[in-house]
Every structure is written in C-alpha cells, then in structure tokens.
C-alpha cells in the first residue's frame, strides 16, 4: 500500500486548488491511501475543505501559532515528524511546495522528484527537464520515502463529495526563531486566479508599456479570464511578477490561453503547453508561438484586441 501525505496549501482561509490537483496525482499512485495535512494557526476551516476532496481518506491538522504563515524552516521539521507513517510525501510545485518540500527531503536524507507530471508506478514518475524539452522517467528506491512536488498543470483538480475524517495532531516542537514572516503584498484582485483559471489572456513585450497593457486587463475582464504575462513584459514592468507564465513563472493549463504580442520563447511555451486551446495574436507570422497555437491571427494587436473585445460584447 502507498500511504501518501499531501501537504495542504492555503492562505489561512481557503484551500488552494493546487492541493486538489496534488490529490489527483496521489490517487494515481497504486494502492493510494491519502491523508492531507493542514498546518495553520487555526486550520479547521481549511481542513473542512480538504475533507471534501474526492479520494482523501483522512485529514490531519497541526494547529500552532508558528504555523500562521508558511515558512519552510518552521514547517519542514514538523512534516518530518509526521512522515514516519507514510511512504510518499507530496506538495504542489508552487512557490510554497518548491520552498518547502526539498527542505523536507533533505531532512529525511532522500532525493526529491520535482514537478512530477505523470505517475508510472508507486515509485516511478515522469518529470520535465530543460524547460520541458526532455521528459525524464525516474525510479525512486522502494525502500525509502518518496518526496515529490507535483506539476499541477498535469493533473485536474480532485472533485468534491468526500467526507474524510478530520483529526488534530499535536507535535512537540519549538519553532526556530531565525526565520520571521514580515508581510505579504498580494495584488488584491477580483479577477480569476492565474494558476487555476479556465481562461487566461496574456500579454507580451509587444504591448510596449504599462498603459498599453491595460487592454489585456480589459479583454480578460470581458472574457472572465485571468491575466498572464511573458517574462519580457514583467521584466519591462508592464505587469507584476506574479503574472509571469513560463519556465520560471507559473505553469498553467487553462481551457483557453490567448497569447497577445508574445513571440513564444521556449521558456514561455513550457508554461502553457498543457492549455487545451491556444490562441496567438502576433504581427510576426514567423513567431514561434504560432507553432503551438490552435488558432493563429497575424496582425496589429492594437487593432485586433479592441475589435475582439467589441465582438465579444455582442
């Protein structure tokens, strides 16, 4: 049997959808028995959401003041304490999981599988390397714990309808004082979340300025879509960092991805190739984005985007 512990990601109130995708990955592991661990100052509400995920057998909560903010140095030793009962430890390959899980793996003295994208067996996983240009199948030793981060774009979110038992676990633990949370400045927004949105409209360098980038926000709003950006657009200051899509930003898998003025560097394409439908709008007919696009339109984005916006109001 594979006894799997999935580390929940949340903001104190809401369970992140990345965790539901992790659970789907976990369910594909042969003989899976899935427990979700929720660390927090007051984890009850998040635990209740995790308990509803299909396929989850148990939810354990670890309530402590030091768990109010997700600091890897604080969480990792607690996860190691829980780890004794499990064969697999999974976290989403988000900035949360990428920060935390390697610290857990190193404390356990085991290697980590980053960005698991397919389950080939209880100890066999596929993962992308070289910005997704080479897919490697890795075998982990069955006599050691598997620690992995899960490439969320590769798995659908687990559905609801579950009713897992929730239990509290007390861990004897003195949190290290050497790492202190100060603040988080999240761009508060009513727009859909980029990582989990069904539709995404992204803008690139060709937008030319922060002001011009507004037409991307406008089109996204019209379509009920999240906003993304290429690295070039973020580097140029047209869009904030958390909107970056690609190898070093977010890897996403929306139903519809609209790339506006994005040439399609390989580092960007790796972030979108699981999108179901890709639309590319670019003035350069030779742009590599058209090689992956389902629908390509060559032309001036400053004419096309407003026209598209207008035709969608009808």
């Amino acid at each position, binding site marked *: 049997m594979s006894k799997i512990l999935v580390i929940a990601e949340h*903001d104190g109130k809401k369970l992140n959808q990345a965790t539901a995708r992790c659970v789907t990955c976990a369910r594909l592991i042969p003989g899976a028995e899935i427990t979700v661990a929720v660390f927090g100052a007051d984890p009850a509400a998040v635990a209740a959401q995790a308990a509803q995920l299909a396929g989850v057998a148990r939810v354990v909560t670890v309530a402590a003041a030091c768990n109010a903010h997700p*600091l*890897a*140095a604080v969480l990792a030793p607690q996860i190691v304490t829980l780890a004794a009962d499990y064969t697999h430890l999974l976290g989403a390959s988000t*900035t949360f999981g*990428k*920060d*935390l899980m*390697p*610290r857990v*793996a*190193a*404390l356990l*003295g085991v*290697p*980590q599988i*980053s960005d698991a994208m397919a389950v080939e067996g209880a100890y*066999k996983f596929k993962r992308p*390397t*070289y*910005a997704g*240009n*080479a*897919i*490697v*199948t890795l075998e982990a030793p069955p006599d*050691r714990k598997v620690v992995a981060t899960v490439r969320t774009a590769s798995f659908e979110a687990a559905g609801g309808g579950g009713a897992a038992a929730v239990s509290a676990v007390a861990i004897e633990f003195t949190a290290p004082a*050497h*790492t*202190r*949370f100060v*603040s*988080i*400045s999240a761009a508060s927004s009513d727009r859909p979340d980029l*990582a989990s949105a069904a539709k995404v409209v992204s803008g690139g360098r060709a937008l030319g300025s922060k002001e011009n980038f507004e037409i991307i926000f406008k089109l996204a709003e019209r379509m009920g879509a999240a906003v993304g950006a290429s*690295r070039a657009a*973020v*580097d140029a200051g047209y869009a*904030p*960092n*958390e909107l970056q899509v690609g*190898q*070093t930003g977010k890897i996403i898998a929306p*139903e*519809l991805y609209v790339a506006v003025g994005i040439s399609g560097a*390989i580092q960007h394409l790796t972030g979108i*190739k699981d999108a179901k*439908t*890709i*639309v590319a709008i670019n003035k350069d007919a030779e742009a590599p984005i*058209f*090689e992956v*696009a*389902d*629908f*390509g*339109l060559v032309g001036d984005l400053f004419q*096309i985007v407003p026209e598209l916006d207008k*035709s*969608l109001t009808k």
Partner: protein
Amino acid sequence: MRKILVGVKRVVDYNVRVRVKPDGSGVITDGVKMSVNPFDEIALEEALRIRERGEASEVIAVSIGPDDAQQQLRTALAMGADRAILVKTDRLVEPLAAAQALLAIVRKENADLVILGKQAIDDDAAQTAPMLAALWDRPQATFCSKLEIKGGSATIVREVDAGLETIEIDLPAVISADLRLNEPRYVKLPDIMKAKKKPLDVIELAALGVSAEPGLKPVLTEPPKPRSKGIMVKDVAELVDALKKKGLV
C-alpha cells in the same frame, strides 16, 4: 568580515534547443554551447554588490562538475569573484549530493551567506538551496527579488505565487536568487585577463565525503509530445466563430 559563497553551475546555454538522444539515455550535450546557469549569474551579481557595499569581504564561486566547469568558474572570476573552487566529478550530481558538497565547503570556508540560483535551467529541480539550508540547519530565503543586510540579519523580498512576501532571516543563511533580484554585469576583456590569475582550487567530490551515487534512477529520457498543428484565421470574426464553436467564448 563576511564571506559569501556562490554556486555556479555549468549548464547547456539557454539559447540552445535541447535535443534528446535517440536511445533515450539523456540529452545531447556534445558540441553544445555551455554557460553559467543564468540564475547563478544573478546570485553572483548580488554577492558582488554586497561586497562592493562593504558588507562582505570575499566572494567565493563554487562549481560542482567536470573539469570543463573551470570555464564557468573563470567567467565568475571575471565577473568579480575573488576565488573559485571546483568540486570535481564526472558524474551527474543530484541536488541532495550538491547540497552535501556545498555544506562541506561552507564549513571549510566558514561562510556566512550562500547565494544560489533559484533553479538550474538543465534539470529545473529548484532543490539545492532549501536542501543546503536544511542540512546546515539555517534559514532559507528562496525566490529572492530583494535583499537588505542589517547587522546579523537580512530582510528578503520573495517572489511567491500570490505576490511579494517579505521575511526576515538571521545569518548565516541560504538565499536563492530569482530573476528580478538584479541585472548581472557584463564581463569586460581586461577582467577576463585578470581572472586568469585568480586562484581556482580543485577538490574531488569524494574527498568531501560525498557520494555521487544517484538516489533516483533515470530510466528514460524522451522528447515531449508535440501539440497538433493549428490553423491560421484571417480575421477577428473567424477567430470568434472558431472559439464559439468550441464553446470557449
């Protein structure tokens, strides 16, 4: 005064279109341009700036890899590192072994700060920094986009999925550099000449008591499945029609 250790990994240049070997045993690296991992250049640039502000006295560039990685260390020396150490091995080194090797160097050098790239663009693993911090039992600040040292601690801005997170860590610590931490300087010709005279020590990986035996067995490397070729539409109306047919708008 503070000593900063910076990781410098030799990787396939980011402009190279990587190809998988036909026998599935890996990717083709023969005759391919190799460079310093771009995130490591950012890490090194930050270390140099800290030294230039007078907050550190020495910057040591460390690479783990084959003899040829001396080229990337020379680049690091030309950028401004004071000296370099190559931990030599001809085998592929997993992040856990890399972290163990770096820890051995950290202890040997009594380093106060380690700055690594947030990930290497070959294996894209993004593990070494948190693993080193764990083994060292010190704070970690991954995905750092701003760093300020005040006395014995540092204030770090981190690029996280939700936005920007600020944390405070006590030194010694491990930091991983994100894209927007800085823009690395260009190397000038006289610096390349000067770099040839800077010290570069070579230590065998085994001499550090670290095994390169992989914990994970790569059984197959394959190219990704290609997306099927799409169609070009002539105007917005045709695009909207196509999307409507698919129920996407």
